């Protein structure tokens, strides 16, 4: 295991200290329990947005805390959902009296821990509503699985949900917008290499020099199938083919195209894949009106990418364009 760390058991704590020091203007980092809030929060009268999940997906979720972004983020241990007391403390700290939305990515652990936290918050008279994202088309959605995972689609979902809260929407309206994003976004990912959880010290899986894993999740879980490494164009066609077919996306749709790196993918490859994705969509008459390319939702040092497509209407576009001032995403401020 090759990592720039001191001790596998203190990675998250030390990184959080670094975040606190590097972004003191934007966020406040709390310890025991660990959570991150807006430095200027809570904002009275605004619906607060709280999310979180396992660490190792940086900049998720702390990198999206700030004006126009999340009010609080809750980092668990690496690839392990946070605990209810962390989520509760973050919820209390973020609450500005107008209710709190929990943005939960669909994993059993996250669902269970956020559920418990919501019950506890309810007992403290905080009005919490949860919205769950499950955009990963690599997983069959049926009563026979834990359901689709929440993956790359979470980034535009965060941005747009938070923008709705920032413009003053009430709790129900924010939840409605948030669910509209979930209904309109789909994602699929792939990996060239695995990643290694610090405390485990072993790669999450192994891949031969000529193999890739299609349908990978963001936790180093093995994917849907292992195949020979092919060209960028073919990889893009596989991922986007599944994405487009699923919703489905249709000729004339306006979309946000998001090519996300898994942490270890250089941006030259992401832009190359983005170009291939544009060609794929152009052939099908699907318009790309907004774009995002970069390492925004990662799996430690994994090499690979996910491609997300979000069907946009005027309101979602406006909310996507709205100002945000966070460590990982900034515009209009």
């Amino acid at each position, binding site marked *: 295991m090759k990592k720039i760390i001191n001790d596998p058991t203190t990675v998250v704590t030390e990184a959080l200290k670094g975040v606190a020091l590097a972004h003191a203007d934007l966020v406040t980092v709390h310890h025991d*329990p660990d959570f991150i809030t807006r430095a200027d929060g809570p904002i009275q009268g605004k619906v607060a947005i709280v999310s979180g999940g*396992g660490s190792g997906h940086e900049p998720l979720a702390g990198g999206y805390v700030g004006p126009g972004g999340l009010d609080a983020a809750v980092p*668990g*241990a*690496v*690839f*392990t*959902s*946070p*605990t*209810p*007391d962390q989520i509760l403390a973050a919820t209390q700290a973020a609450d500005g009296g107008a209710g709190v939305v929990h943005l939960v990515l669909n*994993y*059993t*652990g996250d669902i*269970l*821990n956020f*559920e*418990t936290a919501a019950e506890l918050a309810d007992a403290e008279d905080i009005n919490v509503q949860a919205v769950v994202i499950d955009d990963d088309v*690599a*997983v*069959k959605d049926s009563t*026979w*699985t*834990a359901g689709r*995972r929440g993956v790359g689609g979470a980034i535009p979902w965060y941005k747009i949900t938070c923008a709705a809260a920032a413009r003053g929407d009430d709790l129900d309206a924010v939840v409605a917008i948030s669910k509209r994003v979930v209904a309109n976004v789909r994602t699929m990912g792939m990996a060239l290499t695995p990643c290694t*959880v610090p*405390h*485990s010290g*072993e790669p*999450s*899986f192994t891949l031969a020099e000529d193999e890739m894993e299609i349908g990978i*999740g963001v*936790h*180093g*879980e*093995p994917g*849907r199938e292992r195949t020979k490494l092919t060209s960028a164009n073919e990889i893009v066609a596989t991922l986007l083919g599944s994405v487009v077919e699923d919703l489905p996306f249709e000729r004339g749709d306006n979309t946000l195209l998001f090519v996300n790196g898994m942490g270890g993918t250089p941006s030259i490859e992401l832009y190359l894949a983005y170009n291939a994705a544009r060609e794929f969509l152009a052939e099908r008459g699907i318009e790309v009106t907004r774009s995002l390319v970069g390492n925004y939702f990662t799996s430690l040092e994994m090499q690979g990418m996910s491609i997300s497509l979000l069907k946009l209407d005027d309101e979602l576009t406006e909310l996507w364009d709205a100002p945000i001032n966070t460590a990982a995403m900034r515009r209009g401020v």
Partner: protein
Amino acid sequence: MSEADRTSCDAAGVVAGIRAVAATIAEHKVELTRLDRDIGDGDHGENMARGFTAVLAKLDAGEPDTPSAVLKLVASTLISTVGGAAGPLYGTAFLRASTAVKEATTLDPQAIVTALTAGRDGVVARGKAELEDKTMVDALTPAVNAARAAADAGGDVAAVLRAAANDAAMGAAATIPLQARKGRASYLGARSIGHQDPGATSTAYLLEALAAVAEKAP
């Protein structure tokens, strides 16, 4: 009496059992993580060890004086330190077990069955897993059934826990050919077949540790 004995088990006995569980989990941490790497995200051993290390610290700071209070301490500590799926599930199990034996100062074999049953029911209520979904329920349910049969047949504490541990181990092993339908392993579909479920395995180790402590009691 400060240890579990053959006919009942007081708070100290439950503490001894929990300490043994913590030791077992620490011992099998790497194995549990490896199992989870095969069909999950490679953290189950680490999660459980983190939780039970915290439990030990709490117990060292002061041992509660009823079995129910010990179980509640375990529950709240696991909930606030484990995270992931296992944290709330094991947390709920210990919480429901605690509530189920709230009034008892010692646990007789029937009380142990009651606690185990309540714990299993809590896991099912939270996680909605059915038998053969390839989860810890596949270890818990056989354990509960075997414990009840042993208690009904007049078995003592050790006999009840032994029966539970044995059938939990068999249940865990029996998850190998199953395709996961709950939790992270379900994402793998048919590729989850051929691997033993980490949560079922930790359940089996947990019950094995309790049984071993009970058997060693005077």
